[in-house]
């Protein structure tokens, strides 16, 4: 275990993250990069950009609370130290997505009310399932919930958003690229560290599987809300503006309708869950479809 955890040291983190892929960035993107004009001038697209970014802030606030909360229940010092880097990663994500809200014109005084207005209630429930485990100092369930389920979802969501923005909004795409690199590290820790703990505590499997099923349901409900009620695609069509033909898991996102995109994202994430959970000895539980 000590050898694997040495790959997650703060020394490695300093070299790969702040001194590596974040070097030269300002709030996660290149200096001088700005949001594209249409997000500022078109009312519908502007509101959808704010709504989407609010979900990112809500998710990252949950991840910050979870990773910091797990430090005190971690069974060894090396895990505590890895979680210290994850805590700072998540705080950075909170900060950069909050700054995106400011860049989109949200006033600092209106930040909390904007988050309250747009936060998806299913995403809040998804976070609630995880934070309840963290509050009970349940390290095994907390790490599976945080570093496998939550981060696994975030990883695929960010990758899809990155693909959609890469050619049309480089500033936001760069912001996402740094978070994707962070999430990859977090998922890796979860898989490596928790596998041995599940082996040592086989009686925990049932609880953890139930948590995964509950979290997966609220995740799918969040996706359903996000895609089915999103007005961006219709607005771009109304404007006669072609969507970016970005590839995501073999599909052209520029031609899929919102329900097809929802299905593609949901199946991608659930497939990832199944693979990752199997690696740590947890049997994937199929959630109900909202």
């Amino acid at each position: 275990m000590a050898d694997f955890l040495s790959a997650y040291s703060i020394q490695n983190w300093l070299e790969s993250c702040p001194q590596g892929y974040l070097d030269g960035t300002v709030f996660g993107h290149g200096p001088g990069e700005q949001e594209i004009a249409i997000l500022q001038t078109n009312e519908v697209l502007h509101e959808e950009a704010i709504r989407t970014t609010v979900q990112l802030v809500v998710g990252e606030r949950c991840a910050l609370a979870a990773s910091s909360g797990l430090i005190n229940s971690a069974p060894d010092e090396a895990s505590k130290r890895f979680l210290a880097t994850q805590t700072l990663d998540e705080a950075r994500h909170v900060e950069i997505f909050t700054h995106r809200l400011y860049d989109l014109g949200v006033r600092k005084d209106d930040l909390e009310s904007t988050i309250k207005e747009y936060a998806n209630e299913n995403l809040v429930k998804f976070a609630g399932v995880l934070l309840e485990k963290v509050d009970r100092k349940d390290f095994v369930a907390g790490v599976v919930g945080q570093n496998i389920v939550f981060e696994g979802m975030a990883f695929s969501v960010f990758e899809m958003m990155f693909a959609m923005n890469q050619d049309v909004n480089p500033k936001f795409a760069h912001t996402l690229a740094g978070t994707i690199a962070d999430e990859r590290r977090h998922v890796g820790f979860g898989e490596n560290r928790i596998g041995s703990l599940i082996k040592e505590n086989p009686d925990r499997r049932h609880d953890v599987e139930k948590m995964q099923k509950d979290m997966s349901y609220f995740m799918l409900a969040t996706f359903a809300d996000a895609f089915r009620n999103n007005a961006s695609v219709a607005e771009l069509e109304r404007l006669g503006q072609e969507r970016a033909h970005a590839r995501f898991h073999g599909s052209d996102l520029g031609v899929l309708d919102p329900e097809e995109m929802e299905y593609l994202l949901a199946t991608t994430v659930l497939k990832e869950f199944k693979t990752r959970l199997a690696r740590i000895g947890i049997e994937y539980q199929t959630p109900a479809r909202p």
Partner: protein
Amino acid sequence: MDIHDLDPETFLEEVHSFEFWFQAVEGYLSGTTWGHRPDAVETPMSEPDRDRLITVLCNYCVGEAAALEGASGLIAIAPNRLAKVFLSTQVADEGRHLEVFYHRMRDLGVGDPEREVERRASPSLQTFRRRLLELVASRDWEAAIFAQNVILESLEFAVFQDHARTADPVTADVLRGVVKDERRHIGFGENELGRRVATAPHIRARIGQIKNELDHLVLEALEETTRHLGMPRTDHERLGRAYLESVERLGLVG
């Protein structure tokens, strides 16, 4: 623009950010490995000196582990986003301190630093750690921030700064980097509590109560550490005074 010219709200937005932390640590951690410059040279050390240094490092680890657990627990009760982000940078700092001290012990030939810390930890520091975590668990923001970012950080600041003057080159380099972080942490505690004391004077009495409760643990830990470092009693008294004065200077108590 000098950050001290900013209005108070913008100043806090700036100094409690990841960006600010990153710029700060980039300046003194860039190019270091396990907290020291690669050209810092090991000097020969007698066996009793090595053993004493290991004991001291073990106790530094107890303090840093307390700070790591304290700072991470404080994130949940921090009253706003900026305080949460600042405390996240502190969590990473404390994790780094723990890591570099563990690594220094490995350099000195300790095979299992975690076990060594358990074996050599000072009882008064362990009691302090327990009490700090109780304050965090009881969601007592002012008391916990005072215990963590003023008392513990001031103690570490005084001891590390002093030890860096006489330590071997590698340990001294590690300590100097840690001291730079501690300065930022004390600044946060001073700023956060200073604003609260100004608007709610009863907090001063609560802080005074915590200080009275924890001071003897700090002074006991200090006494043990200076003894292990082989320092004369006068130095122990001088460090004790330095700690008390640095807390006093913040003007939060009394």
